[in-house]
């Protein structure tokens, strides 16, 4: 190996060897003219945007979660992805919650108080009666089309009121599907935010509610909203 390659010379040093050829300055100038400035800012922006879109399309989503304390239903677990809330849960432990999120989003949830702060504050204020409605962005991408219809319809039931499973079924144009409506609501990934607790039996009884402490939670949520069940 040539002795020259063992030092760490500048480019100009290297070019000063005995090989006949283009004057070093002319070569380095040409190289700089061609490559120093790079592809240009516009090209960089386009490439980075295209990269972001491709990664969003092919990678599992980044999901952030945190725990809301200091409410009657706490600890409430709240998880959100790039398109909104993906999961709200209470009456479970953290492992169960994270397993659910992993399964239903394909993403790996990362704890971040900052990223879900707005959602937590809204839910907390809602439970304290400070705000009337929860107009949070909810990502229902992981549920079936029918379930999405049911959940979106449930969202239209105002605070302080209830609707029956039959009424929800009628409103989505499937009057015979009240049982399926019940099942869809029981699998609501975002309780409180999507108020499945406001849907009850037509005979005046409570109907179902998901989770371990189902019935009790439903009664408590309704009571919080001024609806009393015997």
């Amino acid at each position, binding site marked *: 190996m040539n002795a020259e390659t063992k030092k760490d010379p500048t480019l100009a040093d290297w070019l000063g060897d005995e090989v006949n*050829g*283009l004057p070093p300055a002319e070569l380095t100038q040409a190289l700089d003219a061609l490559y120093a400035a790079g592809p240009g800012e516009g090209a960089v922006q386009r490439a980075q945007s295209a990269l972001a879109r491709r*990664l969003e399309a092919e990678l599992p989503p980044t999901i952030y979660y945190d725990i809301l304390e200091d409410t009657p239903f706490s600890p409430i677990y709240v998880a959100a992805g790039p398109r909104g809330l993906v999961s709200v849960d209470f009456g479970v432990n953290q492992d169960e919650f994270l397993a659910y999120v992993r399964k239903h989003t394909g993403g790996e949830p990362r704890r971040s108080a900052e990223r879900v702060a707005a959602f937590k504050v809204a839910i907390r204020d809602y439970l304290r009666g400070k705000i009337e409605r929860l107009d949070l962005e909810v990502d229902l991408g992981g549920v079936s089309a029918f379930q999405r219809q049911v959940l979106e319809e449930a969202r239209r039931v105002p605070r302080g009121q209830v609707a029956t499973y039959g009424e929800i079924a009628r409103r989505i144009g499937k009057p015979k599907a009240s049982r399926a409506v019940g099942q869809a609501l029981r699998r609501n990934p975002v309780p409180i935010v999507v108020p499945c607790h406001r849907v009850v039996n037509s005979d005046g009884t409570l109907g179902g509610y998901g989770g371990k402490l189902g019935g009790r939670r439903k009664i408590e949520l309704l009571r919080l909203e001024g609806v009393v069940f015997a």
Partner: protein
Amino acid sequence: MNGKPTFELLVERHSRELFAYLWRLLGDEAEAEDCLQDAYLRAYRAYARLDGNANTRAWLYRIATNCAYTQLKKRSRIDGRGAEFVENLASGEAAVDVQVEQQARLAEVHTAVMALPRKQRAALMLRKYQELDYEQIAETLDCSPEAARANVYQALKKLRRKLAEEV
């Protein structure tokens, strides 16, 4: 939880320089864009297995280089892109002041650069324009630092000789 940055940070920190590198290595914006995406997807799949102490920057450069090599294999042998590259440069956003008289000469230089063995061209770009040190270039090209230096040297020697012939 080890000390590795999040994948999002790898994108944030290095996508710009990797794109510029791929552009220099391939001489084509569209191919560089595609390779950038392939490189990051490959990096994502391999990231969990990467040692917590690894030099992530060199690791990314290595993946990008391999993606570029794959892209280069797809090209036909006769690749008359020199003139096009210089035209784009002169008319594009890179704000390079290229006189008309210079364009033909620059096209020759670019053609000669693209005709270099890929490892020599990579070493040259990594050293001169990506400003990696020889340890990092060695990791990127999977060789020793001495071999990395030799590749830069050979690249320049070859360019000088080739272009002197064309005067």
